[in-house]
């Protein structure tokens, strides 16, 4: 059964997270095993991606229960792409975390929980059952609670309380929405819901249900006005943790929204208008927040919000071209957002702070590293041949063609502000002279590290930078891929057929 391969990433991460628990005290073995596990997951993900690209959607019925009754795992093109991106970011962050995370944190099972987080992410991308999606979301947030609060520093606990409350609240709203949709349609399989929801003659209740889903996923993906927990908490944990959170956790919410909007609630005018308005507000709140901050990691947190707005806006337009832009943006954003937080971590290691007022002269100190960083930061802005440019072009064009001029204005404003913010970081942290700061005691600076450790810091950034350079220069391939995904998503009949009419 070739289609069983889509469950292998789940098995792989589960196996490694349990295996790591057996080496609780032996951190060196844990580090090796974690990198090994993520490498295996990457190989599996590449294999799945190639198989799905050639043969089309793969479906696995858990326990061989036929489709609408049992839980199904569906590996369509979108899921396979996201699995691949999860594996890429997962590997990079795992290499980064084995050197950057303090030993005390590693000794409390950091890496084991990290594998559980990846397990939850993979599961959420694969499942074709709404309740199962809820369960994967819970696995994700439970692991993320542990990762965000492990270490127990003062500001970390503050961030954790806020993060915990809002995310748990979001999950409960998700459960409410899920109960409502079960009450309306009597099924939990997404493809089956998509069919049965058309025959529900209670449009108001369907809209209520849609808005509940939107609120729940909005909390997860930091859509305005539900986004204030994100900048309050994302800068508090170690950089490796914020990297995986910013790269993938908010994107799971976006993924769930894309699935819901295209599969279960397509053609809902009210919802589309709502999404576009929310996107504009999200973009504005994120970009103005980013300008005001002086801490590099806080700036990046606000930029996450700003760029979530791009994807939500494209989703609000809801045609093939716009969705292809959203998918392209998603692919670009996962890689780049993970990378900028890793860069934030390296800057912290070099200067012992991420406050822009207290650092400077990075370009003078290490020109090669600065060149690497600027490639990534320019990808984020979207300077032409780099990866951020192409999806923005699709989004600009599609919003212009569908007459959403306000959204277009917000997109352009956000791009401009991202540029200003990056320019500010560049001039403050890289060009300015280093201000007088007393060296921090009991802090291992980057220069004092062993060469191997330096490379462990730099390799993941180089790896992700190469991926994002490929996304930029090989934009043609990614565009073909995202057009294909977008067409698949807009013709949801393909998905429904693949799930319900197997054989």
């Amino acid at each position, binding site marked *: 059964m070739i289609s069983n391969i889509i469950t292998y990433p789940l098995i792989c991460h589960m196996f490694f997270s349990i295996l790591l628990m057996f080496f609780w005290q032996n951190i060196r073995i844990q580090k090796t095993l974690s990198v090994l596990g993520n490498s295996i997951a990457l190989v599996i993900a590449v294999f799945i991606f190639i198989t799905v690209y050639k043969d089309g959607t793969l479906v696995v019925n858990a326990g061989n229960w036929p489709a609408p009754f049992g839980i199904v795992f569906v590996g369509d093109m979108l899921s396979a792409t996201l699995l691949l991106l999860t594996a890429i970011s997962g590997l990079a962050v795992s290499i980064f975390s084995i050197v950057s995370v303090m030993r005390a944190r590693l000794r409390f099972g950091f890496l084991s929980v990290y594998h559980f987080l990846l397990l939850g992410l993979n599961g959420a991308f694969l499942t074709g059952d709404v309740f199962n999606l809820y*369960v994967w979301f819970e696995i994700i947030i*439970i692991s993320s*609670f542990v990762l965000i*609060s492990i270490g*127990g520093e*003062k500001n970390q*606990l503050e961030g954790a*309380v*806020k993060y915990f409350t809002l995310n748990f609240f979001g999950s409960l709203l998700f459960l409410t929405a899920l109960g409502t949709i079960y009450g309306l349609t009597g099924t939990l399989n997404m493809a089956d819901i998509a069919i049965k929801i058309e025959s529900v003659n209670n449009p108001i209740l369907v809209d209520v249900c849609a808005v509940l889903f939107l609120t729940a996923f909005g909390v997860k993906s930091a859509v305005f006005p539900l986004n204030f927990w994100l900048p309050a908490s994302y*800068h508090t944990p170690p950089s490796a943790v914020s990297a995986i959170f910013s790269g993938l956790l908010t994107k799971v919410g976006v993924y769930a929204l894309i699935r819901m909007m295209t599969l279960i609630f397509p053609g809902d005018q009210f919802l589309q208008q709502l999404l576009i308005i929310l996107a504009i507000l999200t973009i504005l709140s994120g970009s103005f927040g980013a300008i005001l901050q002086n801490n590099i990691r806080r700036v990046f947190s606000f930029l996450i919000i700003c760029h979530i707005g791009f994807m939500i806006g494209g989703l609000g337009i809801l045609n093939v071209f716009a969705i292809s832009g959203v998918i392209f943006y998603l692919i670009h954003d996962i890689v780049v957002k993970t990378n900028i937080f890793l860069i934030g971590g390296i800057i912290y290691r070099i200067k012992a702070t991420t406050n822009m007022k207290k650092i400077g002269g990075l370009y003078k100190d290490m020109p090669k590293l600065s060149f690497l960083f600027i490639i990534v930061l320019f990808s984020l802005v979207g300077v032409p041949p780099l990866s951020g440019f192409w999806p923005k072009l699709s989004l600009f064009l599609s919003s212009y063609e569908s007459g959403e001029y306000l959204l277009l204005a917000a997109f352009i404003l956000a791009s401009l502000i991202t540029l200003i913010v990056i320019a500010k970081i560049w001039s403050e942290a890289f060009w300015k002279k280093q201000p007088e700061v007393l060296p921090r005691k009991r802090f291992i600076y980057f220069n004092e590290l062993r060469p191997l450790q330096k490379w462990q810091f730099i390799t993941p950034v180089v790896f992700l930078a190469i991926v994002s350079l490929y996304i930029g220069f090989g934009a043609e391939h990614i565009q073909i891929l995202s057009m294909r995904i977008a067409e698949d998503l807009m013709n949801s009949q393909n998905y429904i057929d693949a799930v319900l009419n197997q054989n």
Partner: protein
Amino acid sequence: MEILLAIMTGILYAAGTYLILRRSIVKLIIGIILFGNGVNLLIFLLGRITKGEPPIIEPHLETFQDIYADPVPQALILTSIVISFGLQAFAIILVKRAYKVLNTDDLDMLNTKDEDS
């Protein structure tokens, strides 16, 4: 019965939301617990309260002959109870730890300016 349960659910949601909005961390936890119970009750209600037979098809029949009680919502509630139990346990530990480190149970005090972190 349905109306009573609907009112109960509404009260639990309202009380839960109100307590989550309070400044005290302990009330926050209680609010989350109440809200979670409201959700469970809602799922139970939306599975329809029917006095029916157990959902078992007789060996010689193809389909259900009688009104049956839907088992799925109960499975959903059971799962969600287990999950929210785990989360609540974590929340209580987190709050206790936060109280020890921060020396306050007022959420408005959790605003350290951490420009350096």
